[in-house]
């Protein structure tokens, strides 16, 4: 499924956090734009970031170059959805 709107991207990002990090669906459902991710989620260490990015590529049909990622990309759930939307919906 190639996403057509921000809502679909957000749903996909939630699913990736759930499946790639093993975070429960209930916890992920409670995330909002301001929920902090990297540095705050114990599951999201730097190794897990590698798998998270590859899984986002697979689910959204996008290509992420490492130069695209900066400190803010994974700062919050909202920032990650914005990043994924910019990639998937352009």
């Amino acid at each position, binding site marked *: 499924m190639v996403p057509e709107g921000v809502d679909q991207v957000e749903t996909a990002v939630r699913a990736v956090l759930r499946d*790639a990090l*093993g975070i429960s669906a209930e916890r992920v459902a409670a995330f909002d734009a301001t929920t902090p991710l990297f540095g705050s989620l114990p599951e999201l*260490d*730097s190794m897990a*970031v590698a*798998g998270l990015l*590859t899984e986002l590529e*697979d689910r959204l*049909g996008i290509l992420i170059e490492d130069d695209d990622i900066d400190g803010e990309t994974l700062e919050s759930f909202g920032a990650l959805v914005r990043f994924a939307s910019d990639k998937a919906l352009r």
Partner: protein
Amino acid sequence: MIDRYAWAGGTEAWVRHGKAGQPLVIAALPPFEEANRTRALMMRVLMQLTVHGISVTLPDLPGTGESLVATEDARLADWQAAYAAAVEEARRDHPEIHSIAIRAGALIDVQADVASRWHLSPQDGASLRRELGRIAKAAALEDGGSVEWPSASTVVEVAGNRLSNDLLAELLTGYPPLPAPLRVIRLTEDAAPADRYINGAPLWRRAEPDQNLDLADALADDIADWIARCAK
């Protein structure tokens, strides 16, 4: 039963179950860390296939599993050659051989002379290489260091695995499309094209190896149907 098969570079172990004369499924796990994360799933799929009257084998490849070849001496071309040789050795007992692979295991059966291929969420070499680069950088970052990527040195450390730069270069090799019959299965939320989508979480992402019996059994049923259709 665990014994050994021969290829041009030596011998490697393979697990085999089944009876001579039955169709055989030979299986390729993805390389590196994902092999550990998908082994339980693959073993369950293979055991279920034996219930369908299909013999199964999972060969170790040079530089993986119990192999005496060092990880840094592993090459994709050798994996492909060893896998193809395992197919030929298995053909003595099994007239009809099908290959199944998970993720980047799909890079390994390209040379094998098989009746069909069945791939779960195949990952191409460029994607695997990108992911290895991310893992190498992340691991170096956690150790407070940095890693040169792409690297000019002969051996590159990726999260504790010493990998040959030649192997990393091999991952960028393009291949012509695989010949039919080929069946591609992906998980429901995957965006890439597939012949069928099946519900399930990507176990290859989990830091701790996990099992999903429902997924394994659905996959085994799909493979058994596929093989029956290929035989017609």
